[in-house]
């Protein structure tokens, strides 16, 4: 591995630690307090639902978007080549997604264990994996796929905003929104969801990983000639 890639991975890691810690402290505190409250309520009529993966998905999205604005100019100032930037950002996004998928899947399992162990009825833990089978590995695959997809998508959005400013980024978002609304109005979105739901297998999430890799590949178009000048 080249020195530049190692250096950039070190930079990304050191820079991310604080945000990751804050995220987990908030998530774990909220979860602990809620479980404690649920333990004392102990009323099956009152149920709090937790989807522990969703905050992690949101974190990945925000992190991917901000990573461009907050880290790339400094990386260029350190003399990194665009190829090293592309490779190391990709490795970092993958590693962070894997780490978060492992943690969220494990935390979900642990939460369910505690819920069962203490027979807590006022809290429930949901996960998209219930559509398949709620196992650790399924949760991991689904979380990894979703996080990678959201991470890379928002990273590319971040790059578009960085390179083309509010006008460029806003235009792209508008086009996507219009396309989505049109598909929604035509019923294509509903049809797609119904089809996927009825035929859902774990393979679908591997396809999402593939889409995320393609999206990340597209980021090279924006990274190839990126400079420290951010278009406003």
């Amino acid at each position, binding site marked *: 591995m080249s*020195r*530049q890639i*190692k*250096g*950039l991975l*070190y*930079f990304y890691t*050191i*820079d991310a630690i*604080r945000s990751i810690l804050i995220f987990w402290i908030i998530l774990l505190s909220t979860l602990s307090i809620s479980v404690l409250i649920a333990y004392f309520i102990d009323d099956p009529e009152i149920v709090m639902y937790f989807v522990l993966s969703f905050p992690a998905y949101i974190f990945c999205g925000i992190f991917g978007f901000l990573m461009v604005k*907050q*880290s790339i100019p*400094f990386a*260029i*100032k*350190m*003399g*990194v*080549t*665009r*190829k*090293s930037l592309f490779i190391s950002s990709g490795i970092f996004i993958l590693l962070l997604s894997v780490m978060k998928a492992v943690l969220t899947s494990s935390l979900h399992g642990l939460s369910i264990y505690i819920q069962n162990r203490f027979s807590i009825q006022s809290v429930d833990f949901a996960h998209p994996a219930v559509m398949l089978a709620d196992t650790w590995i399924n949760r991991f695959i689904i979380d990894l796929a979703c996080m990678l997809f959201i991470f890379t998508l928002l990273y590319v959005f971040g790059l578009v905003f960085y390179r083309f400013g509010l006008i460029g980024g806003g235009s792209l978002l508008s086009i996507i929104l219009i396309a989505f609304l049109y598909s929604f109005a035509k019923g294509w979105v509903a049809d797609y969801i119904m089809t996927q739901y009825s035929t859902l297998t774990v393979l679908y999430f591997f396809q999402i990983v593939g889409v995320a890799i393609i999206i990340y590949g597209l980021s090279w178009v924006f990274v190839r*000639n990126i*400079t*420290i*000048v951010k278009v406003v």
Partner: protein
Amino acid sequence: MKIEVKNVSKTYGKKNALDHISFTLEGPKIYGLLGRNGAGKTTFMEILSGHVLATKGDILIDGEKPFDNQKITESICLIKEGDNFKKDLKVKHVLRIYEYFYPKWDNELAHQLIQEFNLKLNAKVKALSKGMESALGIIVGLASRAPITIFDEPYIGLDAASRKKFYEILLEEYEKEKRIVIFSTHLIDEVSLLFEEVLIMQDGNLALHEEADMLRNRTCSVTGKIEEVEKFISEREVIVKKQLAGMMTAYIFENEDKVNKAGLKAESIPIQELMIYLTERKKGASR
């Protein structure tokens, strides 16, 4: 190393930050890159470091373009007046990160300078005062041992004693390992004696490129009675002239000896004054 600047232009919207400039720098040498605000100094340094692309023309370093060229970018360290480092990082992380990017990085020197400038390794960049952040930039610039080290107004907020310390260390390090040092500053008088060559930029153009000694020898101020000075300067290139109480002082392109022989008082012109008047004159001429 050899830096060839070939017909380089850079435009931001409608503004010409650099306007077809061409020159060559060959090292090892300490260059003073001077000019007023908005003259295009920082833009030039950013293109040279491969941080931005020129709109037209090329900068070649030993025949290679710096943009996206690892061999060249790890040979160049540009320290600007601010925003060099991510604010959330600790000083020790900054040093560790830069160590990866500069193959000739001198960790011992970096830690020695950390002590010298009284920085704390565990302090975050955002917790440093303006002067301390400047000191960190200086430390990184010197410890990088990059064959081309560029300081763009590197000591904002640094007190006089620390600046003096920096000049001394810079010279020591330069003597130990010669390299191209490009120094851009507004505190010209403080550092002018370090310069071996001076480049003065004005409105995106190169107004002057001269060896510092030649510049000092080729220019001087003439003081005397108005008629005598007027007569002496009548056939010479005048930079600026001032009158006070029947006396005149003129800055001219001439050797001090010739002025003395004419019975007039000759003094050398500080480079800072020269820069001010040369850029003013150029501005006037372009109007």
